[in-house]
């Protein structure tokens, strides 16, 4: 384990910020590009995880364990969010026989 954690000693903090923002941007693009509601939901999960990784990196950088506790709370929240979101998607599928978000444009007005 010590051998593994030695390898991050040379990684600058900017690399973690860059990685997290790239993955967050990929999540944003996924939400905008796809029409399948479940894939949109998965892009949201991708964004949540990018933020989790950044919080952990900052926590290690500052030597403060509060950041990792926040990540734990975010994971609990994500589990609740996924349960509710998938229930809503199942309900939509039952009513409209599709999970294409363009079918749901009645909510626009």
């Amino acid at each position, binding site marked *: 384990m010590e051998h*593994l*954690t030695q*390898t*991050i*000693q*040379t990684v*600058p903090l*900017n*690399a973690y910020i*860059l*990685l997290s*923002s*790239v*993955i*967050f*941007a*990929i*999540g*944003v*693009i*996924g939400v*905008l*590009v796809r*029409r*399948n509601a*479940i*894939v949109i939901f*998965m*892009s949201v999960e*991708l964004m949540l*995880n990018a933020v*989790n*990784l950044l919080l*952990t*990196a900052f*926590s290690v*950088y500052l*030597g403060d*364990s*509060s950041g*990792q*506790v926040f*990540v*734990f709370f975010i*994971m*609990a*929240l994500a*589990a*609740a969010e*996924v*349960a*509710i979101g*998938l*229930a*809503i998607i*199942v*309900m939509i*599928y*039952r009513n409209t026989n599709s999970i*294409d978000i363009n079918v749901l444009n009645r909510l626009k007005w």
Partner: protein
Amino acid sequence: MNTFYFIAFLSVFFAILVISAKNPVHSILYLILTFFTFTVHYILLNAQFLAIVNFIVYMGAILVLFLYTLMLMNLNKESEQPKSNLIKIAAVIGGGCFLVTIVAALRTFGHSEPVILKDPNLGLVKNLGKTLFNEYLLPFEISSVLLLSAMVGAVLLATKDPKTTA
């Protein structure tokens, strides 16, 4: 070559595959791989508790729930109609603008210090448990109420309404 950069490349690669795969089931499988690379990131940061929680909760519970929901819906017969190219280009420009803003803000920082693990016990269960049950005891208890309400809400939403179906 540094392990971090290799794993970071894999994370970005699989994340791009998640949003570009045509079949939603492939999308979920790529998402599992992406989350596995995140677990490796946590291990490299010596956040062992988070690595295990990420492995069990995300890869074990949440993504299986996704896969299960997708298999309940029989979506294979009609594949997803892609959006028009104009919307795709606009979406990539929108996401790219966000990325450029962050990177430009990062450039003003200049060179940053390397991430050094000062306290090797930081991410271990013993240390995190002390923080969780001392400073964050109230949020911890409130999150149990959140999980209970989420469970009740999910059951309420997903069960069929007997008045409409009968």
